[in-house]
């Protein structure tokens, strides 16, 4: 009897032990999964940096960032024209795309009937998923010839790049801004309307200020997408490693030069391309930081 009871109690405790071990192992596995994101980020930094940093040491950070002379075969690695190119294309795309996107978002949230909204909103969100290479293809086939007809030249250049990129970031900015605008409490609108404000006065004075941080987030996100975008820009920009003098001149960006040169680059040339990748990585990280600071200041408010 006694022995039997003991045996039972032993197996009971073994069972519990087994469960505890199982829980511990699982906990460890889950923890390890969570660490993959951190590990991935660290590895990305490490491998891009290890392969890219030597060029900064060799050619000089200041020299690289301030020179436009990109002649990798002759050992000259000025990347200023790519930085200017990325900057110009991003700013141009934002100037074209952001007002359009935010305007469309306001329209959808404040003016459109529920039926129109229920069709257009998901359609815009779906279009945010179209691959960038398709936007680039559309640019080559449709936008470039139009620009060529209007401005002369080859049509491949800054203007085409900005237009294609603008079209591409509009769905993203519009969808996120619309979320921000439509989450403004209805009471704000009613309170304003009840004092005799016109619809536009209500939008301008109450709704937009209340949704401001959300809209800024959306634009910053669109900006991050624009800076990091490769294919769409590459396909229509003309890809000359010079600072564009006019709106229809060809240009290159930090992203496009990597794709263009990588297939045949070797030695210092390849190292320089990784160096450019590092610059891009730091840029994108600073956008994350910017969004974090923005959202933190919003919480503090």
């Amino acid at each position: 009897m006694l022995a039997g009871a003991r045996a039972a109690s032993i197996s009971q405790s073994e069972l519990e032990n087994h469960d505890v071990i199982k829980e511990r192992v699982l906990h460890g596995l889950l923890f390890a999964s969570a660490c993959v994101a951190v590990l991935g980020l660290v590895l990305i930094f490490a491998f891009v940096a290890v392969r890219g940093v030597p060029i900064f040491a060799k050619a000089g950070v200041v020299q690289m960032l301030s020179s436009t002379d990109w002649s990798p075969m002759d050992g000259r690695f000025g990347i200023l024209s790519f930085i200017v190119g990325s900057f110009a294309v991003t700013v141009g795309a934002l100037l074209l795309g952001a007002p359009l996107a935010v305007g469309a978002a306001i329209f959808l949230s404040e003016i459109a009937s529920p039926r129109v909204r229920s069709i257009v909103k998901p359609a815009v969100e779906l279009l945010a998923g179209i691959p960038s290479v398709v936007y680039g293809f559309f640019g080559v086939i449709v936008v470039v010839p139009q620009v060529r007809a209007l401005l002369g030249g080859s049509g491949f250049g800054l203007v085409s790049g900005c237009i294609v990129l603008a079209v591409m970031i509009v769905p993203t900015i519009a969808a996120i801004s619309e979320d921000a605008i439509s989450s403004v409490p209805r009471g704000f609108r009613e309170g304003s309307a009840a004092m005799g404000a016109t619809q536009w006065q209500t939008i301008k004075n109450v709704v937009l200020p209340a949704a401001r941080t959300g809209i800024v987030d959306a634009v910053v996100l669109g900006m991050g997408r624009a800076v990091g975008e490769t294919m769409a820009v590459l396909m229509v920009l003309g890809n000359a490693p010079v600072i564009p003098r006019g709106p229809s001149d060809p240009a290159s960006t930090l992203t496009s030069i990597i794709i263009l040169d990588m297939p045949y680059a070797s030695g210092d040339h390849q190292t320089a391309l990784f160096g450019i990748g590092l610059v891009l990585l730091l840029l994108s990280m600073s956008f994350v930081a910017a969004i974090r600071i923005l959202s933190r200041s919003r919480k503090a408010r």
Partner: protein
Amino acid sequence: MSKRLANNIAISVLWVAAASTVFVLAWLLAYVVVKGLPALSWSFVTQWPTGVTASGGIFPTIVATVYVTAVGFVLVIPVAIGAAVYLAEYAASGRFVNVIRFAADSLASVPSIVFGLFGLAFFVYALGFKFSMLSGGLALSLMMLPLVMRTTEEAIRAVPQGYRLGSYGLGGSKWQTVRRVVLPAAAPRIATGIILAMGRAAGETAVVMFTAGMAINAPIFLTDPGRTMTSHLYVLAMEGISVKNAFGTALLLVGMILSFNLFARWMAGRRG
């Protein structure tokens, strides 16, 4: 009166903004559909590209796209779900959780070309996987990770607390509760997030170009290289060869990704 005028002008401007947004996007879509449809045929999807102009079909690129996306999908699921379960159910909020979140947010914002560079340096060169479906799938899974992690965590957090208490009340362990109660309840939303991420992976170009390679090849083993539909479209468009096939490829690609996204929406809608 001027107040009314300002109102009418502003509303017209907003109307024009919305209309042109819809018009441009509809134009793009219609253009791809109208120009792409004539290129589509049974032989287009079943035959190999032929000659220097890459006429013929795009069969191997379809295989490569499906293959590399599937590898990314298989790799990302356990890690992303594990990480999300950890964040939502196990981790006490603290500095380490903040670190994980920061890393995930940062990963989400890394430009795809940088994932490509990293894949090239790490998987292709350092680990010696060469240009292969494995390298491509690994790079894509890292790219999908933050997206799937976030949607999964949100899905898990949306499961009512009562479900968990019910399971604990019956003597369920933490893991039993997660596996038998929480994850099944969150499954439709988790699936939605995964499908969306797959849509993104299938449409990715820069990452796979540098990791899966550009060789026209119908991959069979994980170690085989292959050119995806996106890379193929890029080549066709940039070399200006076989514009008809470029449209066909673009249409197939857009159709594939839109159906992914529509399916995800349908899943999400069904839950409500």
